[in-house]
C-alpha cells in the first residue's frame, strides 16, 4: 500500500493568520503573470506574492494587509469565495510557500489551484462564508492573533477559542500528512497502466498517433 514518506508532512500548526478581504482572488493577484518566468530559486521570490497589491511602482510598500507589522509573520490566510480562481499557474502556490504560508482558509477554491496546493503541501480548508467572515473579523479585531489548525483531527481553533471542524478528502489528507508524491502512488500501478494502454490501444486504434 501507500509508502509513508514521513518527513516534513503537515500535522498541526498554530500561527498568525491574515485576513485577505478579496472575493474571487484570482491567481493573477497572487502572482502577476510577468513573474511566471522567474525561477523559484530566485532569492527575492517571496516578493512576487501579491506583488502589485503589496508594492507601489517605486517599490515602496502599500498598506496591503500582509505588509502590516502584525500580519507580516502570518502563515495562514483567511479569505473569501473562489480563492485561487483563474490561471492554472502553480507559481501561485510557490509564491505562498516562499512566504511560509501553509494554510489557506476560504469558502471555496478554484479547482486547479486547490489541487496545486495539495500537491505542494499547502492545506486548503473549506469553511462556510459565514465562518470565514467571523474568522476574518476576529483577526481584524486582534491583529496578530493565531489560529490553531489540526489536520489529523480535522479541526481548527479560532482566535476566540472556538473550535470548527472541517472536511477534507481522505487521500488529500494522507498526501499532506505524509508529504506524499503522486508519482510514488502511481508507480504501484505500473502493471495496470501497461495493460490498460495495450487494451485501450486495441479498442481505440484511431486514437493513436501514427505520424
Amino acid at each position, binding site marked *: 500500500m501507500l509508502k509513508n514518506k514521513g518527513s516534513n508532512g503537515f500535522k498541526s500548526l498554530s500561527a498568525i493568520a491574515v485576513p485577505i*478581504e*478579496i*472575493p*474571487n482572488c*484570482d491567481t*493573477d*493577484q497572487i502572482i*502577476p*503573470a*510577468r513573474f*511566471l*518566468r522567474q*525561477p523559484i530559486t530566485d532569492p527575492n521570490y517571496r516578493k512576487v506574492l501579491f506583488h*502589485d497589491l503589496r508594492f507601489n*511602482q517605486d517599490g515602496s510598500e502599500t498598506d496591503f494587509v500582509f505588509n502590516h507589522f502584525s500580519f507580516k509573520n502570518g502563515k495562514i490566510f483567511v479569505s*473569501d*469565495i*473562489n480563492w485561487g*480562481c*483563474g*490561471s*492554472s*499557474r*502553480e507559481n501561485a*502556490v510557490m509564491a505562498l510557500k516562499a512566504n511560509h504560508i501553509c494554510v489557506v482558509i476560504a469558502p*471555496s*477554491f*478554484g*479547482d*486547479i489551484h486547490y*489541487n*496545486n496546493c495539495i*500537491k*505542494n503541501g499547502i492545506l486548503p480548508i473549506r469553511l462556510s*462564508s459565514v465562518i470565514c*467572515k467571523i474568522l476574518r473579523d476576529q483577526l481584524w479585531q486582534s491583529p496578530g492573533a493565531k489560529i490553531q489548525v489540526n489536520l489529523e483531527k480535522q479541526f481548527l481553533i479560532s482566535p476566540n477559542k472556538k473550535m470548527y471542524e472541517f472536511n477534507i*478528502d*481522505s*487521500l488529500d489528507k494522507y498526501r499532506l500528512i505524509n508529504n506524499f508524491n*503522486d*508519482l510514488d*502512488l*502511481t508507480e504501484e*500501478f505500473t502493471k*495496470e*497502466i501497461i495493460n*490498460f*494502454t495495450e487494451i*485501450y490501444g486495441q479498442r*481505440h*486504434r*484511431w*486514437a*493513436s*498517433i*501514427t*505520424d
Partner: protein
Amino acid sequence: MKRNIFDKIWDEHVITERENGESLLYIDRHLIHDLHYRSFKSLKEKGLNIREPKKLFAVSDHSVPTTAKKLKDIPSGEMFDAVQGLQLAADEFKFHHFPMSDKRRGIVHVIGPEQGITLPGLTLVCGDSHTSTHGALGCIGFGIGSTEIEHVLATQTIWQRKPKIMKININGILDFGVGPKDVILSVIREISASGGNGYAIEFGGSVIDFMSMESRMTVCNMAIEAGARFGIIAPDRKTIDYCSNKPYAPKGYLLDEAIEYWKTLIPNDEAIYDSEYSISGEDIAPMVSWGNSPQWSVRIDEPIPEPKKEMNPVVRAEMEAALNYMDLTPGSFMSAVPIDMVFIGACTNSRIEDLRTVARVIKGYNSIVKTFVVPGSGLVKEQAEAEGLHKIFIKAGMEWREPGCSMCVALNGDVLNPGQRSASTSNRNFRGRQGVGSRTHLVSPAMAAVASITGYFKDVRKFNREYNCAEK
C-alpha cells in the same frame, strides 16, 4: 443508457479507482507551451523519462512577440530562453514541436483542434486553464498544474476525482450582432465566477447546435471563468466533419472506426446531470465587462450596477473596489466610456470566423484607437490573407500581427500602460492582467471592431443602422 457524454468518455479512460473516488485516468493527448519549458529539466533530475512522446505536442505562444517570425527575431532574455528552451527539449526528447518558423504554430488552444490533435472522445490536458476550450470538440480537456504536468509526462496518466456535471441549455435564436462571446459572458454572469467550481459544464440547446465549431470553442474556452475546469459539447455531424480532414486525425479505415465510436457519444434525452440551467437566446445582448472578474458584465443597453443596491456587504465591497480600480461611475452606461486600445485575439477569439466578423464590421471605416489584430495561428493568418481580410484591417489602420497569446496575458511585450483602458476579445479582466494598472473590458469581436471605429463601447446591433445612415 443514462450516462451523459462526459461520463461515457471518463469511464473509457479509468485505469483504476480508489475508495475515495479518485481515478487514475489515461491521457490521450498532452499539449505543452513555453512557460513550462523547465518541466523537462525537472523530469531529468528525477531520473524520469517521457512515457509516450508521440502523444505530446509543444508550441510556444505566451512568450512570443507578435512581431517575431523566427526564433532569432526574439530579443535575448526571458522570452527567448523560454521559446528556445522548449525547442531544445523537443529535440532532446523527440516529441512534436511546432517551431517559430513553422506556419502551423500559434496559440496552443487554437492549433490543437486545427491540427486534429484534439478529437472527440479523447482525454487531453495542458498546463493552462483555458484547456477547457478543447471540450467544444466533444472531448475531456482540462488545465493542470506543473506537478501534474510532470506526472503526465512520466506516466501518461493523472489522478483525478470525477467532477459533477452541470448542463446548461441555451435555446432559441441569437439576435443579429450577438455571438458566442456574449453567450458565455451571459452564462458566467448568471451562475457567477464560482458557480462551476467542482463541475464540468456541458453546453447544449439549439443555440449551441446552430453554432460553428469556432463559436463552440469560444463558449468552452470561458467555462473556466465560471469556475469549471471542463466545458464540453456533444459531438454532432458538424464536429465529425470538422475533425475528419485534419492532419493528425485518423485516416482511412481508422477514421471509419473513429466515426463509428464518435456517434456513440451523441447525448440522449435521458442523460442524468447534477445540475441544470436554461438560458433563452433571445435574452442575450452584446455584453461588456465592467469589473475585475468575468462575472461582472452588463448588457450594452444596461447601466453599470450600483453597489449601494447590493445587500451582501462583501459583494458590495468587491463591486466598489472594482469600480474604483476601473474608474467607472455606477448607474452610468458603458457606451459613454472612452477607450485607449483595442485587442482582437487570444484563445477565446482569434480564429478565422472571429477575424471575418471584425472585417465585416470595419470594412469602409477607420480605426480611431490603436488596435492589434493577432491571429490565433499561422494557418489562421494565412487563411485571413487568402481572403484579403488583412488588407481591410491594414487599410482601417489596425496592426496585423504575428500569432501568439499577446495582450491576453501581456507576457510578450504587448502591454497597456497604467490606467489605460482596453476593449479586448480575451477572457480575463483581472486587475493588472494586461499590464500593471491596466483596465480590461471583455467584449466580442464585433463589439471590439465597433470600439475600434468609434473609440467607445457602442451597440453593434445599432451600429450598422446608425453609422450607415450617417455616413452615406
